[in-house]
């Protein structure tokens, strides 16, 4: 329910006032099409006379001069140099309301100044120019300036040339201390430590320029550089640690976050940085890191609420990926193309779906990934395994012959004696089983897809305790004696499945079968299962804690009998330890009495899956992921004990096998050799130590391409004509794909371009927007606003660059440097422009409130994460560990419980040092953002964000004043001031001040603080206030001195430290 209060309303319509002064004509009266005319046409005409044919009126388009196949161009209504004779001018000046454009009912109206501009433009020839950002940047000449001495690098020449044109002077340079803090915040997101500051000051005293240059290099090489700049990219990559939507379950993508940090620290060339994120999996011999990089596209939200059609939300994710590539890489808005052709930019709806086609061929894969330590540990274990296996071989010189003999029988041996006798001809085991495919309907919570091989893939909502039913019609064989259930891998499942649990495992509580004749002559009846076998039969063991259903009952997983014992507390489990759990498995259920098929049989398989946890809104399911049913008429079949991977190798002639394949066969065969039991036991223990790893959201290309269609109005239920992979005509062309293109390569000769070709196209030197977009955002991070203030849109509706040549120069410089972002950072912080003082006079403020002309240094409140990090760093609490899973600093528990959160969420508050990690590592739930970050404008990761808004609100004040971790920072800063600050209170105050602001207090500031300190000391000492609550640690360890005076002093110092931490300057870069 909403209730909202009206007041007398004055309409506040957002006008496009921002660009007003930019559209002012140059003094000489020359009209610039891009600057002066295009914005008028775009705002007033192109909705009906643009390139979107579906909404076009009068068969006229004014986005181009020449007519196109589909409509008349502007040349039809413009006679160059003849405004009165031009219909365009006639219509916009018509006195008859029926004639006048734009029409009254459009709500649009041209101002006299706009009419005048159009008039003048036609008078000057009425020519069109290509939009600036659709032409690839060329290196512009560095302009000549009067005050050449001010120029440190070409950036300054461009900035100064503009200032001189405007009759303005740059500001003086900032102080060494101010620069040290500015640099540290910009390059690492952390203030300098007092030690770093002292070293810099000492160096700067003798040679300021060298000291500054060295400081820049030191900070660029700091691992914190990657953390700080990763955060900016992660906004664009809409990184979050949860799925979003209703369930908003935790997800595993932190390795992607770490990949970004590492790539930026290593100064990975920006073109490679993009290629790996868009198509790292398609690079030849893709590494784990390159596959993890594709998490960029997987950061889309996932909807698993009950009753969804997973395909609908896969499409939503696809739209999101297009939007992210548009904003993050191209700097263009492509979202419109989802439903219709772009109204303003020359992006047709077809173009949108052609680019979409590059991305539409992926599985939503969840690979197993391991940390470097896990990799190293397992490699060592593998060596041990190899040694033990070599010892086995050495102990039995005839092992090869014995293994060959075993293989011979295994090849011939079907899965039971009975099956062999009942089959004629060549009795291979597979031919005895007939795959039966159920007819699926879309009802129920969990959804299922029927795949081509007859297997079923579970998707969408994953209830933790439920029974799914699959009905098949059997017409042959003549009898059904047994049913086989195969569990299969699928890239879309965690760790590749075969289950849906976070480990890719599953548990089958019971397996039940009903049968009825197809003709309906009898009701369905339960069929008794005499006996069950499986390839894996783990020993019975209690469920892991994540599957706790809070029933208090002893629930276990174990051998296959558990799925046929009528006991809901027991289930067949497949978890033979990490990695080996994530392989195909099979179970065979032999019916007590074979069923005669006669005219056909309807079988219903009930998969009881009750071994998940209590909370279906969390990662607690234990469901089957991909599986397949088969039936046989063979009597007494048993499950194939040979692992599927080994079974596949056995089909290859021994002399054609690779050494790895031979080892794999040996690795299984040795387990069948009775006298090796002891070594096998040791080897088993080693396999059990395989690291669990983490499942990471990545892309993997499908072997069978999906056909992409243009979607009418973006509706996935309304596919129109097919769309083949391609790029918009207004951008640079796509190179012919190389013959070595990935698995989507089509038939011989006709190689179909794939996602890797698209990724390379995105960072092609000829791309007019890619380099501009990223240097613009780097600039934005330094100066608060980009050279184009709409970084998400460099297109025709975006803002024009304040310094177009500078933008192009930086873009070309980036590409010429081998796409080195650190090179751009070095140039920017090396410029005199950057090093100006941020102080502003009232006159300059009035002239240039947003500092677009750059006559002063940047000054603005730091980003949300840095607000937190500054407090942690200044207090000394900061735990500078890099990377790893996200952490859970203190937060009010109610946030993660209904009714604040939809479902109960896990917030494993870290009480150790992890709570003091940089805010970058704070676990990010999309539906419940971390409050201390949200109030400072951190985006929630629902969509790509390339420009944060920057607010200044009372909730921010409440956060830094009262939030427990900030108070703890104040207490810690107080302790350090007392212990490390010096001999007297003045020195200690100065020390605390310097830790936060990197400068000493002025005499006046010191006096104000000293007075406050004295008053609080007196009050706490005199019993006017109790010092204990303020100095007691949050984690309830009262580390407080018994000494009353000392306690009073610490409380007073805590109050002072809280003040310094709350100063505007503390959370500001200036």
């Amino acid at each position: 329910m909403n209730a909202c209060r009206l007041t007398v309303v004055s309409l506040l319509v957002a006008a496009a006032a921002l660009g007003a002064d930019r559209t002012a004509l140059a003094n000489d009266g020359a009209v610039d099409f891009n600057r002066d005319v295009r914005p008028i046409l775009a705002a007033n005409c192109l909705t009906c006379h643009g390139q979107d044919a579906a909404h076009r009126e009068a068969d006229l388009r004014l986005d181009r001069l020449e007519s196109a196949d589909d409509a008349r161009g502007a040349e039809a209504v413009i006679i160059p140099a003849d405004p009165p004779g031009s219909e365009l001018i006639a219509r916009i000046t018509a006195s008859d309301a029926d004639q006048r454009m734009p029409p009254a009912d459009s709500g649009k109206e041209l101002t006299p100044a706009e009419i005048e501009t159009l008039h003048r433009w036609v008078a000057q020839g009425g020519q069109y120019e290509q939009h600036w950002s659709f032409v690839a940047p060329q290196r512009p000449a560095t302009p000549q300036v009067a005050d050449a001495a001010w120029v440190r690098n070409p950036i300054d020449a461009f900035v100064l040339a503009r200032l001189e044109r405007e009759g303005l002077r740059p500001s003086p340079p900032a102080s060494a201390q101010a620069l040290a803090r500015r640099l540290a915040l910009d390059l690492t997101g952390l203030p300098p430590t007092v030690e770093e500051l002292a070293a810099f000051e000492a160096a700067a005293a003798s040679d300021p320029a060298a000291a500054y240059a060295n400081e820049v290099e030191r900070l660029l090489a700091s691992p914190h550089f990657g953390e700080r700049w990763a955060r900016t990219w992660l906004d664009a990559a809409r990184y979050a640690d949860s799925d979003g939507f209703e369930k908003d379950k935790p997800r595993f993508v932190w390795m992607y976050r770490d990949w970004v940090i590492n790539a930026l620290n290593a100064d990975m060339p920006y073109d490679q940085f993009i290629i790996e994120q868009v198509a790292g999996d398609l690079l030849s011999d893709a590494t784990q890191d390159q596959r993890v990089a594709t998490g960029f596209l997987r950061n889309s939200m996932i909807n698993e609420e009950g009753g969804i059609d997973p395909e609908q939300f896969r499409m939503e994710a696809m739209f999101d990926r297009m939007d992210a590539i548009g904003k993050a890489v191209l700097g263009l808005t492509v979202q419109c193309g989802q439903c219709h052709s772009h109204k303003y930019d020359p992006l047709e709806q077809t173009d949108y779906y052609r680019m979409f086609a590059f991305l539409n061929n992926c599985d939503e894969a969840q690979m197993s990934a391991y940390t470097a330590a896990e990799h190293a540990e397992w490699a060592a274990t593998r060596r041990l395994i190899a040694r033990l296996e070599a010892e086995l071989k050495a102990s039995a010189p005839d092992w090869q012959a014995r293994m060959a003999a075993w293989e011979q029988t295994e090849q011939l041996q079907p899965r039971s004696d009975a099956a062999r006798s009942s089959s004629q001809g060549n009795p291979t085991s597979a031919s005895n089983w007939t795959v039966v495919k159920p007819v699926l309907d879309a009802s129920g919570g969990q959804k299922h897809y029927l795949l081509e091989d007859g297997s079923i893939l579970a998707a969408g909502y994953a209830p933790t305790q439920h029974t799914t039913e699959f009905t098949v019609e059997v017409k042959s064989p003549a009898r059904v004696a047994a049913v086989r259930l195969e569990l299969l891998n699928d890239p879309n499942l965690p760790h590749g499945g075969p289950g849906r649990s976070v480990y890719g495992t599953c548990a089958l509580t019971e397996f039940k079968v009903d049968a009825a004749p197809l003709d309906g002559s009898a009701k369905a009846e339960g069929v008794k299962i005499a006996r069950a076998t499986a390839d894996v039969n783990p020993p019975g063991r209690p469920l892991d804690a994540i599957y706790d259903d809070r029933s208090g009952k002893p629930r276990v997983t174990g051998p296959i009998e558990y799925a046929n014992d009528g006991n809901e507390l027991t289930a067949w489990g497949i978890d033979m330890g990490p990695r080996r759990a994530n392989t195909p498995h099979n179970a065979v259920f032999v019916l007590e009495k074979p069923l005669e098929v006669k005219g056909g049989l309807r079988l219903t398989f009930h998969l009881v899956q009750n071994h998940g946890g209590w909370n279906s809104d969390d990662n607690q399911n234990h469901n089957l992921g991909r599986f397949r049913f088969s039936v046989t008429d063979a009597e007494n079949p048993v499950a194939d004990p040979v692992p599927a991977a080994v079974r596949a190798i056995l089909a290859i002639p021994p002399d054609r096998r690779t050494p790895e394949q031979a080892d794999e066969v040996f690795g299984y065969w040795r387990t069948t050799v009775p006298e090796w039991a002891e070594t096998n036991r040791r080897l088993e223990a080693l396999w059990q130590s395989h690291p669990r790893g983490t499942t990471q959201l990545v892309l993997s290309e499908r072997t069978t391409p999906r056909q992409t269609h243009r979607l009418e109005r973006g509706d996935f239920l309304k596919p129109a004509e097919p769309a083949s992979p391609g790029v918009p005509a207004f951008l640079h062309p796509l190179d012919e794909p190389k013959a070595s293109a990935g698995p989507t390569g089509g038939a011989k000769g006709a190689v179909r371009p794939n996602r890797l070709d698209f990724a390379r196209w995105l960072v092609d030197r000829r791309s007019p927007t890619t380099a501009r977009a990223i240097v613009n955002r780097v600039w934005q991070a330094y100066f608060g606003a980009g050279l184009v203030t709409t970084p998400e849109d460099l297109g025709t509706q975006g803002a024009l660059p304040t310094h177009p040549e500078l933008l192009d120069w930086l873009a070309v410089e980036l590409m010429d440097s081998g796409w080195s972002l650190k090179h751009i950072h070095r140039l920017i912080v090396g410029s005199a422009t950057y090093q100006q003082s941020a102080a502003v006079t009232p006159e300059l403020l009035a002239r240039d409130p947003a500092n677009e002309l750059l006559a002063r240094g940047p000054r603005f409140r730091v980003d949300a994460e840095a607000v937190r990090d500054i407090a942690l760093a200044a207090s000394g609490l900061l735990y500078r560990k890099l990377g790893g899973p996200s952490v859970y600093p203190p937060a009010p528990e109610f946030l993660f419980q209904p009714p604040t959160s939809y479902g109960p969420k896990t917030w494993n508050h870290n009480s150790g040092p992890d709570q003091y990690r940089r805010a970058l590592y704070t676990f990010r739930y999309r539906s419940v953002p971390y409050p201390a970050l949200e109030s400072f404008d951190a985006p929630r990761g629902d969509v790509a964000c390339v420009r944060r808004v920057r607010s200044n609100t009372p909730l921010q004040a409440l956060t830094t004043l009262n939030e427990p971790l900030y108070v703890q920072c104040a207490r810690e800063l107080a302790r350090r001031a007392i212990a490390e600050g010096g001999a007297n209170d003045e020195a200690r105050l100065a020390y605390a001040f310097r830790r936060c602001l990197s400068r000493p207090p002025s005499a006046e500031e010191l006096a104000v603080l000293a007075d406050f300190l004295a008053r609080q000391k007196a009050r706490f000492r005199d019993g006017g206030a109790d010092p204990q609550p303020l100095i007691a640690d949050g984690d309830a360890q009262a580390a407080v001195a018994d000494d009353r005076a000392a306690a009073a002093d610490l409380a007073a110092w805590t109050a002072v430290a809280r003040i310094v931490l709350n100063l505007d300057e503390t959370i500001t870069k200036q």
Partner: protein
Amino acid sequence: MAGAPSHLELFDNKPVLAKYDGSLPPAELIKDYRAAFINPNSTLMGPKFKFARYGQSGAELSELLPHLSTAVDDVAIVKSMVTTAFNHAPAQIMMSTGSQQFGKPSLGAWTLYGLGSESQNLPGFVVFSTGAKGPSGGSANWGSGFLPTVHQGVQLRTSGDPVLYLSNPPGVDDRLQRESLDVINALNRRQLDVMGDPEIATRINSFEMAYRMQASAPEAMNLADEPEHILKMYGAEPGKPSFANTCLLARRLVERGVRFVEIFHEAWDQHGYLVPDIKRNCEVTDQPSAALVKDLKQRGLLDETLVIWGGEFGRTPMVQGDPNDAGAGRDHHPNAFTMWLAGGGVKGGVTLGESDDFGFNVTRDAVNVRDLHATILHLLGFDHARLSFKFQGLEQRLTGVEPARVVHEILA
């Protein structure tokens, strides 16, 4: 009313549906229809409660809404709502932001952007959650999207600190807080003199407003000073979090200049146990909802306060589960549902629109979510086509680019 209340049990009386109880729906009705959980070809289930006509206007309501029935002449009932989403999170986001895709500003944020706030001491857009769960769409329901974040909703609680971190930390009493602020502000003022950045002045204001909020928010949230008859009217009990308390709080906040109050009561997703659960929901929500309208009216505030009641979609006339069991329920249904509005320039006693005999499709005066938003904005004094914000090269609007109409039939 998150979760989607059944229009068939509350507002939209369908005697024909009762007649066809237990039979399959007409084939043409469910052609191409997608349901969330059920097979669309499930049997029809007749309405489970009795309907009667109330008030001078003779508006039809179910027996589950005895309190609303006494306020019905001040309420406009729209029986012809339609939406395009039929899963909770997207449909709630659609209702809140006009788009199924996340990242757009909410209705409350647009309102604040357009009208500003009248309160200097309280957030201008306040959100409560009172159901068994939180809203499916999460805090994106009150997000600011691409609008300045200052316009996003602030979630208040009815127990503990109403606003996060509102209370002073342990050991900081009011005097210390005040003296601390004085020093912070004094030092910031000095810095303002040196740097000349007006943002510092804004920071000083923010700290002062935060301090005022520390006093005013608890005062606004304290129901103990409400007279007994008012508490009774809502069924509110001070200190016991409830939907009733929250309705009363909404009135108190609106009186104090809060521009937009939104209460999420996520409780209506009756896939099963429709009869007992919807009954219990109505026992909790009917009286306070009606009381809010009546209380605003008796204070002369109803003409300037718009009250909107509704969920994100409706429910199927087809049964979910065993129709003969108490566990029977209804699935999600976007094609027809009911909302009501009162006050703020809405004509009372109006019932707009009609659905077919099964409550399945709207047959007259369809009102889609854009139309609803256009109408709300109109009541707030805006032309929905002109309340816009430039982002990604477009003049973005709550009602998007598709046509939307102001539903003049329900305007006074």
